[in-house]
């Protein structure tokens, strides 16, 4: 076989290098290698950051979630395998906080997507004061969430708050006056309202960017073909936002399930446990009860849930996009 191969495919002859060509080539290679090394040096800070502040804590807390460790009482963590994960689903506080997180996430996500898309479609039109509206939508983003929570706390205060004053005294609708944050049903609604106020601007900007990236020729052609108003929205604009949906939905899911600041500032999880969300329970377990192992396990469970939802969202939207294509 070897003989045949040799006969049928003669060895390629190397062309002898011209005088000076080898030196140039070596110089080129050296220069390329130096360039690469410099490139690595440029990304070194980022690598260090990822390793020290992301990868290492992730692995460390992953290990911690498999241990029983109260750092105020225990000298060292004790390995308990998956016990913390199993205990979590038998713990009513965990189940309640997980359920509340989903309730918050469901309503927040649906309203967020619908409202921000609607606002983006509105701002995509050629209307007067468009720049002003765009700025106004974006303004809540620059207000720190904890500060916004304190302002909402004041607005929703039952006896002397602005909302009840407007409802009761200005608009003469006393039957609408409520202790907004002190009763279960309105407390969750109030937290969702704050979160939406704080985040709709960002989602709107994302949708607006998506709308602006649609080829103007497509829009012009559609208009020439008679697509106007709702027809234009449903048949031209919305189908062309596929990539944007993936981004906005991912961001929406993340924000919906990692909710923490709003209930922490506004209700402290109350009344009772009606607005207690999972990250609050994780925080309490870690920093009030000092139970680091169990807190890490709860954090991991929510992290996994978020990951699964984001992957499902990506797969679903990609599949839907492929069908449309």
């Amino acid at each position, binding site marked *: 076989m070897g003989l045949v191969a040799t006969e049928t495919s003669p060895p390629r002859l190397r062309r002898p290098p011209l005088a000076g060509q080898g030196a140039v080539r070596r110089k080129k290679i050296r220069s390329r290698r130096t360039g690469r090394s410099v490139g690595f040096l440029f*990304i070194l800070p980022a690598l260090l950051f990822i390793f020290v502040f992301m990868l290492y804590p992730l692995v460390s807390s992953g290990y911690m979630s498999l241990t029983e460790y109260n750092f105020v009482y225990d000298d060292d963590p004790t390995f308990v395998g998956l016990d913390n994960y199993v205990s979590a689903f038998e713990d009513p506080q965990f189940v309640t906080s997980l359920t509340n997180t989903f309730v918050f996430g469901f309503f927040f996500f649906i309203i967020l997507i619908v409202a921000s898309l609607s606002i983006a479609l509105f701002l995509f039109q050629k209307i007067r004061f468009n720049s002003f509206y765009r700025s106004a939508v974006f303004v809540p983003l620059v207000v720190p969430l904890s500060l916004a929570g304190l302002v909402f706390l004041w607005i929703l205060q039952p006896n002397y708050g602005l909302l009840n004053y407007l409802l009761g005294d200005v608009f003469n609708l006393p039957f609408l006056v409520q202790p907004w944050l002190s009763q279960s049903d309105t407390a969750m609604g109030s937290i969702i309202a704050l979160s939406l106020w704080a985040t709709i601007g960002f989602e709107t900007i994302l949708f607006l960017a998506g709308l602006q990236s649609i080829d103007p020729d497509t829009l012009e052609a559609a208009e020439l073909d008679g697509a106007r108003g709702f027809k234009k929205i449903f048949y031209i604009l919305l189908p062309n936002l596929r990539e944007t949906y993936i981004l906005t939905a991912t961001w929406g899911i993340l924000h919906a399930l990692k909710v923490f600041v709003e209930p922490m500032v506004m209700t402290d999880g109350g009344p009772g446990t009606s607005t207690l969300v999972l990250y609050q329970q994780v925080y309490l377990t870690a920093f009030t009860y000092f139970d680091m192992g169990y807190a890490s396990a709860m954090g991991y469970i929510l992290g996994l849930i978020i990951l699964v939802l984001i992957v499902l969202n990506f797969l679903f939207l990609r599949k839907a996009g492929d069908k449309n294509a």
Partner: protein
Amino acid sequence: MKRQSKVAMLIAFGSAVALVATGCAAGGGSKGESKSGPKSTSINVAAQAWMIEKFHMNDMVDNFEAANEGVTVNVVEYPDNQSLSNFALQWSQGKSSQDVVVVDGASVAVQFLAKDLIIDFNETDFFEGATAKEKFVGESLSFDQLGDVQFAIPIGLETYNISANKSYFEEAGLVGVDGEIPAPQTWDDLYDMAAAMTLRDGSTVTRPGMTIQWGPNAVNTMIAVEQAVRGSFYEDDVLTFDTPEMRDVLEIWKKGVEEGVFSIDTFSNKDAGRSNFNAGNIPMVLETAAHVPEAIPTIGAENSVVLAMPGSAENGSYGFTAGILVPSASENQELALQFIQEAMMSDIQVAVGEEWGKLPVIEEHFDKIDAPWKTSMYDLVKISEPAPMYRDLPEIQVTGKQLLQEYLTDAIDLDTFLADLEKLIEDANKDSE
């Protein structure tokens, strides 16, 4: 991958590992490291923002630095008790950035005794001279004591009781012929008083008669009320709330909430009662009675009075103090103790007491206070009881608050509430260490 690339990657990875290893090594100092050495000239004192203002800590620092040339005291602000976990994590690694830590409610510090993370003041020479034990007011040291261990030094004696705005009582015709508010004998009496001062516009309550602390300190409120109505919150040495006296009180609370007589603002804002009282918007608030002097600038000295809740004049209430801790890992313990002794136990406590109702713990300073509420408040403080020093007290406080709020908003009934609360206490680790 080319050789140079591999080398660069290796350098990056090696640097990262080295950095982490350095961090870990730095955290591994042993607890037993010597705290002696050259005499220190600088200490860090950690306190919550409100403490810095109310305990006049900057004045303490100025006086101390003036009296001890070359010494620097840095006051470091921390947000709340949950930040203590960060401190404890550092202490458990044998290090401490703080030399003195002032905590809100000294009983939270008990948990740090388990691994000797804080010092026992009895093992130092702190109780000598101006701060000898006999110089402290009454039993104030016992608030921060566990067995033979003095784990904290109290600062600012307080007790739970009713802060009342007398002008509302006068308006409602509830003041006696002697011009004083008659102390309510039972919770029914107190409910009637609050109901008489509740304002309504049609069916809407525009001003509740009373606010009760049902926020993060709800369990402390229950402890205070039970101590007052029953004389103890223990049965067989275990914390309990399922008693006939407490059942009566809880039913009255529920009725008060349903009828808008007792406000539930504190569910979402723990400071709502105090803010409204200080602003003159509410007749009564049940939480720390220290709000009485605090409200004087706004509602007037003649209107801001301590009103003993039912039973408290005889049985006391829940008493507490802020606590001063010294971490075992502090390398400047000597200077820290000197600062506590000379600055924190100084006559600055007089101004703190007069302005904020946080009574001095040193008798000499206590005697200098000239305020009408001084005696009534002290009479209450000296018969009041601290919270049980259980390892799982934080969990009882958090979950107990949640259960109480569920009961008051009708999410669960009284029997379920008490059964769940008793189960919580039964399952809790009640060891002190």
